[in-house]
């Protein structure tokens, strides 16, 4: 049994195998090639699903839907807490709108990041107080860097 994270929810997944075919309740998965499977839904309709793991995330495309399913490694703890404002991509900080101790609301602009020749407003992920700011105006930041803690 393995645990996965999808759209913020944890799922425990167990699957039985019968030769070339995996199945769970009414859904069947048959291997076509590495990263490619034929999926039979409980309705009987079939489709081809694609998957590819990058880091701890399975990128999956089935029937027009793209999903990112994150595998939870046993004992692994996230280094980033949910209230952190994370740099979504490499870029340069152009403006900071908040200071430490300030109350912010979810969706409130925290800073302006320049990337791909455009300015992007980075918004507060949740309501709270600005605990710490790890970036300065003019600074180049890497993707995934924690910029502002909201506590």
């Amino acid at each position: 049994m393995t645990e996965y994270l999808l759209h913020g929810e944890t799922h425990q997944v167990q699957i039985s195998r019968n030769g070339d075919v995996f199945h769970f309740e009414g859904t069947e998965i048959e291997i076509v090639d590495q990263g490619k499977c034929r999926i039979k839904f409980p309705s009987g309709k079939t489709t081809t699903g694609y998957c590819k793991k990058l880091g701890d995330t399975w990128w999956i495309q089935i029937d027009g839907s793209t999903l990112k399913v994150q595998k939870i490694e046993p004992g692994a703890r996230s280094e980033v807490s949910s209230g952190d404002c994370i740099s979504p991509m490499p870029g340069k900080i152009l403006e900071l709108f908040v200071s430490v101790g300030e109350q912010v609301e979810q969706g409130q602009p925290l800073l302006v990041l320049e990337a791909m020749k455009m300015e992007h407003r980075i918004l507060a992920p949740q309501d709270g107080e600005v605990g710490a700011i790890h970036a300065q105006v003019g600074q180049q930041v890497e993707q995934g860097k924690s910029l502002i803690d909201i506590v």
Partner: protein
Amino acid sequence: MFSKVLVANRGEIACRILRACKEAGLDTVAIAAKNDASSMFTELADHLVILEGDDIQSTYLNSEAIISIALKEGVGAIHPGFGFLSERADFAQAVMDAGIVWIGPSPHAIEQMGDKMTARMTMRNAGVPVIPGEEIESKDDDEALRLLEEASASVGYPLLLKASSGGGGKGMRIVRNPADFSAAAVGARREAQAAFGDARLYIERLLEHAKHVEIQVLADSHGRTIHLGERECSVQRRHQKVFEEAPCATLTDELREAMGNAAVAAAEAVNYVGAGTVEFMLTNNGEFFFLEMNTRIQVEHPITEMVTGVDLVREQLRIAQGEPMSVQSLDMRGHAIEVRLYAEDPEQNFLPSIGPLAVFIPPEGPGIRLDTGVRQGDEVTPYYDPMLAKLICWAPTRNECLQKMRRALDEFIVLGTTTNRQFLRELCDIDAVVHATTTTTTIEDVWPDGWSALHRPEVLEAGLLLAEVGEQLGWARASHTSISADGEVEVNPFQTISRRFPL
């Protein structure tokens, strides 16, 4: 006459032009920055020159370096594509001064249309209606802000701030409320300065619930100027088009004629030569206003090609050779739609994304065209525009064309980088698209709180199961047989496992 062309661009448009040159029997030179040295377009050229320098100022925007490469390579003509140096009159002039053919309109025409103030005056003189607006000249930040504030009062709200020498949504802001004006103006000026080296802003009244309809024009140096009908490009996010179609389903023959004539008059007013686009805003009571003229080939040119059967890039080459255009009478047929596949996250306000294109399988079949500059295995980087591909469909009717686009987007597999694919697919189902009532605010109107993907429960469940199947079979670590540095073939044990499950 020239026999060798340098393409001063990158990505999908470089591919498009290099292929057209090859078809025309012309020798080609591609230029590429170091971080582009293995990009797809470099494979399509007969000669490749790697540009020195690490940023776009010293590479794709480095007009001196590009002209000196062209001279060294014995190039007869330069095609600028779109973006980069394509609308820089000084570059066009420098190319011509170096004795090289410029594949585009004259520097004078670029200047007249590139400068929004002059363009508006030219249009007014040609009898074409223009939107109320003003350009603010000042270089001084404080003075510019004061003048902009003053102008905002006469232009009226809601209003639009645009970079004077810009395009592509950069340096652009919508302001609905006088209280937000100064913050927006500061941001727009800074973005304009960074993107175009020119902080000047143009301020104009924002026409809401209007359609963006543009006319493709073509003019040769034998005195012939024609239009090739319209494209509707209303559906935009971040002021950039994402869904374009030809023809515009709601345009009457009378209005098409009037807008076409206005566009031809606009081109003739500046002695235009080559391919160009005159953009209009069309209100729901049938009034149209000149927006701007793009003096270059446009991203969405393929849909015009699909419905007219005219190869616009090939015509650009022909016209630059001094020949008359080959287009005879126009015979529009069927309907074409283009969607722009971007590396961006539509669930995060369309923020650009990066990552590997680990799986990239485009759709196929009759009536489907893909213009792209990437292939599976490429890395999407933050250095360039995040557009990955243009997917174009053609069908006899609009409804069939939409059906084909839905099918094509469902078939398009992209894994490893977040894209707007599923957003584009859902866009094909919204009422405004189905009933052809799209306007420039459709996306905000339909998804006022932002978009999030719809997934069927059975698909979510199958996704979790597929991840588990992949884990159990060791696909996470598996790669195909690879050759190590010393030339020995390494056999991956996991590949052997997957061979136990043949089709």
